[in-house]
């Protein structure tokens, strides 16, 4: 069944989730039968610090309207310090995107633990709402990745 059944525009959101906390948080949201938008596509990464800036840009290139990165709460990283590095990197990168004139609300970092299924669903709902209000991302995509309307 196509997602856009009623042809109403829905944003495409990419969420990078770390294996140990946030992905488990998403899992918990699922098993707790909490709902969050189907437009959120989760990409599991070993640790939030695995997220290369290129991943974020690639997601935008291929048509993402918003990108969110989730990891363990600072201090709780499975590898002790990975998310501390990720925190600096993503701050720098998202600040640069803002500097280049990309709406700053399109990028976000949230810390979600394995026990926070509630928070995961709430964050995704909120982020999807923000992106829906912002509308389609036209500033950072590659035109060749936009589906032509038949």
């Amino acid at each position, binding site marked *: 069944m196509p997602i856009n059944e009623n042809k109403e525009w829905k944003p495409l959101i990419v969420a990078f989730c770390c294996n140990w906390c946030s992905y488990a948080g998403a899992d918990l949201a699922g098993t707790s039968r909490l709902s969050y938008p189907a437009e959120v596509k989760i990409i599991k990464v070993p640790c939030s610090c695995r997220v290369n*800036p*290129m991943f974020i*840009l*690639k997601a935008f*290139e291929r048509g993402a309207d918003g990108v969110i990165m989730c990891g363990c709460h*600072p*201090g709780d990283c499975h590898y002790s*310090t990975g998310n*501390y*590095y990720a*925190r*600096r*990197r*993503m*701050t*720098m*990168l*998202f*600040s*640069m*995107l*803002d*500097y*280049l*004139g*990309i*709406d*700053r*609300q399109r*990028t*976000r*970092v949230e810390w979600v633990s394995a026990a926070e299924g509630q928070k995961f669903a709430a964050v995704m709902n909120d982020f999807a709402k923000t992106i829906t209000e912002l509308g389609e991302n036209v*500033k*950072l*995509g*590659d*035109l*060749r990745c936009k589906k032509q309307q038949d």
Partner: protein
Amino acid sequence: MQKTAGLIKKRALELLADGTVTKVLGWEEGDFIYDVTPAFFDKETIDSLVFSSFCGSNLSKYLIKACKEQTEGKILVFLKPCDTFSFNQLLTEHRIDREKVYVVGVECKGMLDIEKIKALGINGVTKVIDNGESLNIKTIYGEKTCERSEVLLEKCTTCKSKELVVFDEVLGEKAENENSQDRFAQVAALEAMTTEERYAFWQGELSKCIRCNACRNVCPACSCMKCVFDNIQSGVASKSNADTFEEKMFHIIRAFHVAGRCTDCGECSRVCPQGIPLHLLNRKFIKDINELYGDYQAGEEAGSRAPLVNFTFDDAEPSVIHERGNS
């Protein structure tokens, strides 16, 4: 300047003669005064070594390869104050071997930009005489003059320091860094714009990019053996500017990869054939780092830990970006 040029040549000859160094890295004379080329010299070729107000190029990157090839003796290199920061940064990253290099620091009053001279309508330049304050320019259309301060290289108008941070000896007279403008003024001006204005500004600038890679190849911090953009298997290698996204991707990643390691030597903007102010990307990172993680100048101190491979437990959350004033 004339005097410093004489000192440099004399010193190079002496150091070659007494065996302190086996080769010299400096600038070679061109057809016109402004087209000097970085080159290695030995006793036979040292005659064509020059130094002038157009020696803006940063020689430190050439030492990466030269150090690998150097088996015996030292290489003499002439570094201006800003170049010494790059040298230190390369030392920090273990790309060059301090033991193999003899650094002669050359004091600098700011280097000149031939493009700016031409932009004043001075065409057909064959010779430029630098009087310290003004320039006497010989052209095929007669003699012209202009003020030195109006044709400084972009990087020299916002000189970060006249301090030599690493050297074995120093030549020339120390210059004062008094007329230099605020390095972050342009970044701050962009930050003060609205998102749409910033987008329009960068769209206009980055769409000029022809992907010649000059900014990357000249950068002393870009010293990867193989760049991700040259690797066909990376999935992002592309020579084209088929879509504006590719320039953005390239320039964001280029600037990000040197964030915290960039000494702000300004070479990227100097070499851009399309005149894109690339240093404004690097400076944005430097400004952010200074504001969020404390003042840091890459290359000021050999061995210092770059901010993006470092952290503290109470670093700012990424949400600080969302909480900034304008939108």
